[in-house]
């Protein structure tokens, strides 16, 4: 076993453990915490594949900004952990395993068809490459996303605005 593989196993365990904990933990704040752990592991995996920019963006955007928002909402709404919610739709529990199998099968089919270089290239994820691609090949989607985010900001401002008497 090489050093790289050891690191991979460690970070993959972090990602999976965090993901499982998000589903299993009843306390929402612990769940958010587990999700952060999972994101940090994911970011490390990106970096190991040579996608340094995506790795950093993963932490800045998801683990930093978005999870901060989650934590804020959980804290301010004061969601209680011990509140027992009535288990509605009990039959859904029995659907979980078949649906999970179906999803895994779908994912497997999607990934198995992919041909090409599976070794980390060490180049694809650098800032230069991402930036150049965003400004040339993917310019239209990039601009559209910006407009979409602007719309969301304006919408949020409109909703949060107090009516003037």
């Amino acid at each position, binding site marked *: 076993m*090489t050093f790289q593989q050891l690191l991979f196993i460690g970070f993959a365990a972090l990602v999976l453990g965090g993901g499982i904990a998000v589903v299993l933990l009843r306390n929402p704040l612990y769940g958010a915490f587990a999700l952060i752990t999972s994101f940090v592991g994911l970011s490390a995996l990106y970096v190991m594949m040579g996608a340094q920019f995506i790795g*950093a963006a993963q932490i800045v955007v998801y683990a930093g900004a978005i999870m*901060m928002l989650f934590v804020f909402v959980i804290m301010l709404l004061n969601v209680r952990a011990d509140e027992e919610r009535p288990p509605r739709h009990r039959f859904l529990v029995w659907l979980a395993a078949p649906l999970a199998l179906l999803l895994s099968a779908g994912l497997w089919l999607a990934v198995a068809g992919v041909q090409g270089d599976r070794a980390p290239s060490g180049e694809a994820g650098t800032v230069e490459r991402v930036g150049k691609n965003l400004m040339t090949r993917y310019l239209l989607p990039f601009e559209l996303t910006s407009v979409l985010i602007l719309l969301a900001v304006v919408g949020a401002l409109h909703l949060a605005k107090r009516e003037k008497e």
Partner: protein
Amino acid sequence: MPPFEQLLEWSVKIAVGFIILMTMVAYLSLIERRLLAFIQMRYGPNRVGPFGLFQPIADGLKFIFKEDLIPLDADKFLYVMAPALSLVPALMTFTLIPVGGEVTLPLLDRPIALHITSINVGILAVLAMTGMGVHGIVLAGYASNNKYSLLGGLRSSAQLVSYELAMSLSIIGVLIQAGSLDLVTIVERQGGGWGLGWHVFWFQPLGFFVFLVSMIAETNRAPFDLPEAESELVAGFHTEYSSMKFAMFFIAEYANMVTAAAMATTLFLGGWQGPGVTRWPWLGPVYFLLKVAFFLFLYVWLRASSPRLRYDQLMDFGWKFLLPLALVNVVLSATLALWF
């Protein structure tokens, strides 16, 4: 597996960096108290050892022997995790900052670069670490189960999130000019020209101003130390903490100060560049330390001489003044980059 030699080099650098950072944190607290005392015409701590030089050791011992309290209704797991969550990112950031160029050591046949690691997305990684540090503060506020802690934590995180935006935008000007996100490259680009190549002089003075103000706000220092406003919030998010857990928040705050000063040096004051560095590479760390010391002095000076802002003033200042200014700087830098 990377060669053994490489691993050894990293370990030694990390150990040396950690020891230096910890020493700076310890003596920064002493220097701050002595300087504050000097400015306010008092003596300050001068009893322990010559000039009070052993005071940080005494403080450390005191922290260790204090009783470690956990409030009855606190969320125990998060309460214990929170100090670690704020300390670890504070220590990790320093790995990316170059404190000097390449030097030769006796007994080694190859030059050693005076930075722990250099990655393609250096600045983004630093910003990511800063963002992660906020979680510790918020969780500390929540887990203590105390209204002052909760309010302090909320204030602190709102402040950090707001000023992080202005800080990131003020850095963009530097990035446009240096053409790289790697801190090592950014420092190398600022060399020559008798210091006129530093970004603070060569068309980033506005960015420097925005960065300086938001860096003080980011580290929760006066006049932006709202989270710790004693008269309103007792001690903010760390009200309930004692002993080593409090010490960890304390170390994190001071390590963040050192890191912010080092970042300002690296981005705007030419890092380790200075006269004669090309001939004597060991001068690099000396210049670097002097510049960092300048910023640290500025921190203490501001704390001694300026009153605290009110919370709404703080938010107004960040969103309505600093953020537009940072945006103007981005546009200016991009335009100038086209011309030159």
